[in-house]
C-alpha cells in the first residue's frame, strides 16, 4: 500500500514536470501564433510574474505586505533607462545596475523597519511608494519629470537587436527561472525558516532562527526582482513615465499575489494573467480601480487562499509545494541514534545555576529571589499551584523574558544578556504549554525547522538548489526521521501539522526542540492531554534522553509521573521557592500538600 503511494507520488512529480515543460513550450511558440496585441499582453503578464513572485515570497512566506513595490520597480526602470540613454551602456549592464539600486533602496526601507514589522512595515512601504512617485515627477534632471524618459534602446546581444518577440521570450525565460528559484527556496531551510517566523515569531526564535536575517533576505530578493522587472519593461517599451508607477500599481501587485494565492508558487502566474486580461476583455480601462476593488472583495470573501490555494485544497493535493520530503520506502528504522546529540556533557556537573532571580510585571512580582541549580543529566521538575510562576521561570531561562535581578549561568558561563535565538545556540531548547507547531509546514518540516538555526546553507545555495544544498537537505531529512523515530511518532510525516491530534503535536514539538541539538531541554507540561499509556511512552523517551546525557527541566501536574521520573523537584508558590529536594521528600512535605496537592490527591495516590 505504502509503496503504491510512493509510486503515485513519484509519478505525480514526473507528470507535473512534463506538463510544466509542455506549457512552457507552448508559451515559447506564442510569438509565431499570435498578433502583437496579445503578445504584448503576455509580455506584461511576464513582467508582473517576475515582480509578483518576489512579492509572493514577501507576502506568502514572510508575512510582510509591502504596498510600495511599484517604487522599487520604478527604481530599476529609471536607473537602467537613465544609464542606457545618457551613458549609452548596454542593457545587460544597466539592468544589473537597476537591480543593485533597487536592492540598496529596498534595504534602506527594510533594515530599520523589519523589527517593527506588521502594519508599521506596510505603512512605511506605502509612504515610500508615494514619495518615489513624487520624486519621479519633480526630479526633472534625472527622471525627465512628468514626461518621463523616452527613446530607451532595445537590448542588444552580439549585434542582434531584440524586438517584441525576443523580448517576450526573454521575459518568459526569466519568469520561469524566477519561479524555479522560488520553488527551490520554499523547499529549503530558508523557506521553512521564513514560514516558521511568519507563523510564530517566538517559537521560531526559540529554534535559533533570527527573524531579521530571514525577513531581510526575503525583502532584498523581492527588491532585486522588482528592479529587474522594471528594467526589462523599460527597455521593451522604450518609454517610461511616472504614471506607470503610481500607488495603484503597488495595490495591483498585492492584488495579483492575493488573487492567485499567497504562498503558492504558481499563484502570481494565475493572478497576473487574470488581472492583465480581464480589464482588456471587459474594455473598462476607466473603471480599472473599481474593478480591482471588486475583485479584492470577491477574493477575500470567497477565496481567502486565492485561486491556486483554494484549487489545491479542493483537488486534495498540495500545489503549494510542500517540500517533497517523502521518506524513501526502504528507509530503515534505526533503534540507535547516532550523533543526534553530539555534545552531551559529563553528568554530575552543574548544568544550570539560578541565583536570586526576580521578575516583575508592572506591580506583579512574579518571581521572588529564585535560586537553585540543575545537575547535568538530571530530570529536574518544577511543580506548584497555577500562577505560581513556573512558566515565567521557564521563560526567563529560555531568554523570552529577562530577569529584573539575579544571574543565570549555563555550564558555569553567564547567560545574560542575550537574545532568544542566542540562548538556543548555546544549547537550551524548549517546548510550549500550548503547542506552537508551524501549521503550514508538514510534520517532518517542523522538525527540520529546528535545524535551521545551526545548519542553514547560504541563501544562494538554497535558491539554486546546489549539490551542497541537496546534500544538506538529505542530512537534515534523515536526522528529522531519526528524531521522529526516537519520539515514537508513527503517523504520516508529510501531513500538515495543523491536522495532527493534540497529543501528537506535543510529541512532535519535543522532536523539533531536540533538532536544535540542546544540552538542556525545557518541557512545559508535556503530558497534559495524554492518556496513561501515552504518558508511559513519554516517560520512556525522557529516560532515553537523559541516557544520552541531556538535562531536562520539566513542568508537570501529573504527580505520579513527576514522582517516577524526577531526580529533583523544586516547588514554587507565589513566585517563591518553597523547597528543592528529592521527589519523595518534596511531595510529602505538608506545605506542598496544603498549597498544591490537596489532601484528597495524597489519599488517592497512596
Amino acid at each position, binding site marked *: 500500500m505504502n509503496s503504491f503511494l510512493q509510486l503515485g507520488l513519484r509519478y505525480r512529480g514526473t507528470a507535473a514536470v512534463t506538463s510544466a515543460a509542455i506549457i512552457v513550450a507552448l508559451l515559447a511558440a506564442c510569438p509565431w501564433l499570435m498578433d502583437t496585441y496579445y503578445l504584448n499582453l503576455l509580455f506584461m503578464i511576464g513582467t508582473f510574474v517576475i515582480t509578483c513572485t518576489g512579492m509572493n515570497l514577501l507576502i506568502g512566506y514572510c508575512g510582510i505586505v509591502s504596498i510600495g513595490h511599484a517604487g522599487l520597480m520604478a527604481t530599476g526602470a529609471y536607473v537602467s533607462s537613465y544609464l542606457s540613454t545618457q551613458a549609452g551602456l548596454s542593457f545587460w549592464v544597466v539592468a544589473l545596475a537597476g537591480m543593485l539600486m533597487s536592492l540598496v533602496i529596498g534595504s534602506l526601507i527594510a533594515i530599520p523597519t523589519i523589527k517593527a514589522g506588521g502594519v508599521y512595515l506596510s505603512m512605511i512601504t506605502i509612504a515610500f511608494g508615494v514619495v518615489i512617485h513624487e520624486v519621479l515627477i519633480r526630479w526633472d534632471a534625472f527622471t525627465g519629470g512628468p514626461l518621463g524618459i523616452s527613446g530607451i534602446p532595445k537590448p542588444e546581444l552580439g549585434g542582434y537587436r531584440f524586438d517584441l518577440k525576443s523580448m517576450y521570450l526573454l521575459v518568459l525565460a526569466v519568469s520561469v527561472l524566477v519561479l524555479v528559484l522560488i520553488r527551490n527556496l520554499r523547499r529549503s531551510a530558508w523557506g521553512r525558516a521564513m514560514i516558521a517566523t511568519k507563523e510564530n515569531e517566538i517559537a521560531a526564535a526559540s529554534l535559533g532562527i533570527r527573524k531579521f536575517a530571514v525577513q531581510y533576505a526575503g525583502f532584498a530578493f523581492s527588491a532585486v526582482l522588482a528592479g529587474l522587472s522594471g528594467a526589462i519593461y523599460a527597455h521593451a517599451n522604450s518609454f517610461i513615465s511616472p504614471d506607470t508607477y503610481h500607488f495603484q500599481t503597488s495595490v495591483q501587485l498585492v492584488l495579483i499575489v492575493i488573487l492567485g494565492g499567497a504562498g503558492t508558487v504558481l499563484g502570481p502566474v494565475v493572478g497576473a494573467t487574470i488581472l492583465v486580461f480581464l480589464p482588456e476583455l471587459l474594455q473598462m480601462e476607466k473603471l480599472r480601480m473599481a474593478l480591482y476593488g471588486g475583485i479584492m472583495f470577491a477574493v477575500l470573501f470567497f477565496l481567502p487562499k486565492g485561486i491556486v490555494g483554494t484549487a489545491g485544497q479542493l483537488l486534495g493535493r498540495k500545489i503549494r509545494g510542500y517540500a517533497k520530503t517523502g521518506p524513501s520506502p526502504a528507509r530503515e528504522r534505526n533503534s540507535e541514534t547516532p550523533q543526534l546529540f553530539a555534545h552531551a556533557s559529563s553528568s554530575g556537573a552543574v548544568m544550570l545555576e539560578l541565583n536570586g532571580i526576580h521578575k516583575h510585571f508592572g506591580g506583579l512580582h512574579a518571581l521572588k529571589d529564585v535560586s537553585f541549580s540543575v545537575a547535568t543529566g538530571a530530570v529536574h521538575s518544577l*511543580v506548584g499551584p*497555577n500562577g505560581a510562576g513556573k*512558566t515565567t521561570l521557564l521563560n526567563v531561562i529560555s531568554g523570552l523574558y529577562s530577569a529584573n535581578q539575579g544571574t543565570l549561568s549555563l555550564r558555569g558561563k553567564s547567560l545574560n544578556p542575550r537574545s532568544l535565538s542566542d540562548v538556543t545556540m548555546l544549547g537550551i531548547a524548549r517546548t510550549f504549554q500550548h503547542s506552537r507547531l508551524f501549521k503550514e509546514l508538514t510534520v517532518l518540516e517542523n522538525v527540520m525547522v529546528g535545524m535551521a538555526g545551526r545548519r542553514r546553507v547560504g541563501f544562494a545555495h538554497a535558491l539554486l538548489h546546489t549539490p551542497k544544498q541537496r546534500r544538506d537537505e538529505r542530512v537534515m531529512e534523515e536526522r528529522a526521521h531519526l528524531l521522529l523515530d526516537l519520539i515514537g511518532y508513527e503517523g504520516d510525516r508529510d501531513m500538515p501539522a495543523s491536522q495532527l491530534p493534540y497529543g*501528537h503535536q506535543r510529541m512532535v514539538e519535543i522532536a523539533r526542540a531536540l533538532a536544535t541539538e540542546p544540552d538542556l531541554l525545557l518541557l512545559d507540561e508535556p503530558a497534559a492531554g495524554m*492518556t*496513561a499509556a501515552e504518558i508511559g511512552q513519554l516517560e520512556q523517551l525522557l529516560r532515553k534522553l537523559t541516557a544520552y546525557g541531556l538535562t531536562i527541566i520539566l513542568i508537570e501536574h501529573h504527580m505520579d509521573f513527576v514522582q517516577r521520573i524526577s531526580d529533583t523537584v523544586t516547588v514554587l508558590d507565589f513566585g517563591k521557592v518553597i523547597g528543592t529536594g528529592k521527589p519523595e521528600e518534596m511531595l510529602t512535605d505538608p506545605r506542598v500538600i496544603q498549597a498544591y496537592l490537596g489532601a484528597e490527591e495524597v489519599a488517592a495516590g497512596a
Partner: protein
Amino acid sequence: MLSIQGLEVRYGAIQALRRIDLELAAGEIVAVIGSNGAGKTTLLQSILGLVRPDKGVITFDGKPITQLSASRTANLGISLVPEGREVFGTLTVLENLRLGLKNKIGSTSKEQFERELASIYERFPRLYERRDQQAMTLSGGEQQMLVLSRAMISKPKLLLLDEPSLGLAPIIVSDIFASIQELAKGGTAVLLVEQMAHKALSIASRGYVIDNGRVAFQGKSSDLLQDQRMIKAYLGVH
C-alpha cells in the same frame, strides 16, 4: 436530553467517527475516554455544530440539531469549553465572566449574577485576586479556571467539556471536578472528555471508550474502573 444515533464524520479520506451511538440524560455526567486522535474532540464539535456530520442524527431536548450551526445550538443551551483556553485576552477577568451571560437564554438579574460571581470566586480565589487583570496576563492554569467559570455562569443545559483538567494543579483539578458535579446536580447534562480517566470516571455515572472513531466499549463507571482493557490503556497502574 441528548441522543446521538449512527453518527459518522469524515475529513476527506479520513473517517473520524464511525456509527457512534450515545445517550445523555439531564443531570447526568458521562465521560468520553480515548487516546489522542481517537475522535473525541470531533464528537464534541459535531454536537455543537462546528463540524457537519456525514450521517446520523443528533437530537437535543427532542429536537433534531444535526444540521444546526454552532451559534444556533449555543442559543439552545449547549456550551462547549474547548481544549486550549480560549479567553478574551485584552478583557479583564470580570469582563470575561460577564460574557458568559451573553448567550444565556432569558435574562439574569444583577443580584443573580453577583451571587454566581461570589460562588465562582469562592471556588477559585485566584480569579478573585486577579479580577481586574487582563485575561492574557493569567497563567495557563488560571486561564483554564476562567474559561470553565465562564461556561458555568451561563448555566447551560448541556455542557461539553474538552479536557478541563489540562494544565491544572491537582488541588484545582479536584475543585473543578467538584464544580462539575454541582452543576450536574442543578440539572445540567455534562459530556466530559478527559484524559485523566480515573478522575473522570469517579464523577461520571457512565463512560464511553472511543478508539479509532468507534465506540470500543461502554458501561457504568464502576464497571469500567475494573475493566482490564481500561486499566491497561487508560487508567495506568495505580
